[in-house]
């Protein structure tokens, strides 16, 4: 008897919960059907499905150059943020805990401060330095904002490191650089890749900073969409938005594929000895470290 009411209660909870979830998802996906409409007015469900919007986008110089700018900036951000972030993540593990806490506070600031304040601040500084509207300027700005996320992702990958492998490598004569690239990196590169892809996605989607820091020739895609929303009713916006949805999906699939490859190799190792440090790992470490020994 009680379980009837319990199940009824659970069902009653499901209805509002699912409605709320629908409220979240439906708008996200609504642009896709809209992008196949050919009318000048936005129609949620197109009457005559066609690829007109996508064709206009591909043939438009302005949109394509904006897309290219977004790619340039995103790649630059991913490279810079990942390099700085990886180094910092490793550095954080080696320093005194009090200083570490302070630095972690510093690294979380870009996430905590409202973007508009950062945007205005950088706009002012960049104008004085004369680099407003430059690609390098936006790349630096995006990198500063993406750094906290890269640190989080790489930091958690480092957390799962097996320290004895690196110690073994060092004790067998490898120097720090060799140890890092041949022993440590292969263990954390999924996290590093995740951080890089996240930085790419963050930069590609970024609006507020880009609004203030891009110039006429360096407009990124989100900025051009913003212009389209405010100044002209552009019927191809749904198609562009659908493309914007596609990018993180592609990145996600890329990430899952690469990390799945890695996991299947790791589990092949595990099936040999079912221990984290089996003979094969140790052999690899010795092989990697010994050439350094021989050169002595």
């Amino acid at each position: 008897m009680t379980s009837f009411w319990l199940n009824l209660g659970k069902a009653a909870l499901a209805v509002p919960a699912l409605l709320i979830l629908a409220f979240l998802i439906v708008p996200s996906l609504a642009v896709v059907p809209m992008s196949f409409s050919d009318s000048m007015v936005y129609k949620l469900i197109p009457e005559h499905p066609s690829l007109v919007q996508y064709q206009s986008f591909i043939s438009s110089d302005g949109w394509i150059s904006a897309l290219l700018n977004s790619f340039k900036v995103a790649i630059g951000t991913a490279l810079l943020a990942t390099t700085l972030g990886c180094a910092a993540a490793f550095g954080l593990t080696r320093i005194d805990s009090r200083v570490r806490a302070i630095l972690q506070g510093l690294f979380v600031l870009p996430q905590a401060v409202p973007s508009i304040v950062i945007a205005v601040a950088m706009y002012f500084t960049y104008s004085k330095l004369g680099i407003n509207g430059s690609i390098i300027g936006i790349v630096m700005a995006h990198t500063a904002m993406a750094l906290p996320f890269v640190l989080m992702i790489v930091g958690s990958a480092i957390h799962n490191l097996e320290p004895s492998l690196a110690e073994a490598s060092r004790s067998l004569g490898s120097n720090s650089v060799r140890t890092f690239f041949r022993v440590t990196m292969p263990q954390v590169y999924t996290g590093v890749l995740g951080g890089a892809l996240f930085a790419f996605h963050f930069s590609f989607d970024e609006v507020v900073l880009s609004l203030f820091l891009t110039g006429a020739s360096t407009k990124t895609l989100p900025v051009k969409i913003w212009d389209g929303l405010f100044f002209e009713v552009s019927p191809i916006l749904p198609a562009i938005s659908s493309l914007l949805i596609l990018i993180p999906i592609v990145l996600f699939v890329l990430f899952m594929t690469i990390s799945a490859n890695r996991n299947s190799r790791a589990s092949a190792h595990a099936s040999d000895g079912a221990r984290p440090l089996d003979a094969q790992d140790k052999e690899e470490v010795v092989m990697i470290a010994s050439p350094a020994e021989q050169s002595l």
Partner: protein
Amino acid sequence: MANKSFDGYTLLAPAVVFLCFVFVYPLIQVVWGSFFYGGFSFNGYARIWAVPVYRQVIGTTFRIALFSTGICIVLGYVVAYFISSTHGVLRRVLTAAVVIPLILNVLVRNYVWIILLQRNGPVDHLLSAFGVAGDSRELLHSESAVMIGMVSSLLPYMILSTLASLLAIPEQLRHASTSLGSSPIRTFRRVTLPLSLPGAAAGGLIVFIISVGFYITPALLGGRRDLMISNVIAFNVNETLNWKLAFALGTILLVCTVTAYGAYASWLKKKLISHGRLSY
């Protein structure tokens, strides 16, 4: 060990120096400029204090943020509780459903709401089918539209943090409560709710801090150039070029946000220490 520290600092140096130049220095210029731009004076702050429209904007900002946060807490709790009651594949699918909107660009999300909320749009038709009068259907370009947009952007964060705190409650506590004779509602009221509320409140605080700084959503859905603080700042930078005022407003927003975030961080740290998950 000293060697290890030195390595650490060397590795950290590029990132720290980079952040100081690219991020910290411009922010310092903002705070400095709020007092010293065009000569030392409190003009910026005085204007904010004296002219009523700025206090209105600050009030509007906090009001919208507060309401959006409240709605997020309630709706977020419902969804999070539901998800926590499911298991296995269903739970994973639902959690993925919550995360999906996060990968969407903020412009696209708000832009879809413009389409949905516009006159003769789907929501308009829906409301008129329910018999809502013509005037009250003016949803777009209003505070309500901004709140709808904000809630749809922030709800995933709220759901995830509430879900985390609900899932952290050991199952045995609920079992103990029901086996000792509590009805499910009583168990919820006396066991689940009090244990999950701190996590939900923490999520709420973060959501509130983020809402106060929103720029895109009020700009697109609000219908006015200067609905919330961030819009006024942008207006003063882009249109009136009143840097001092923009800096003053920006400093206020900066100080409030960072202070609130600091309070949240120290509360979180105390909580983690008391739960034995942090050792210093």
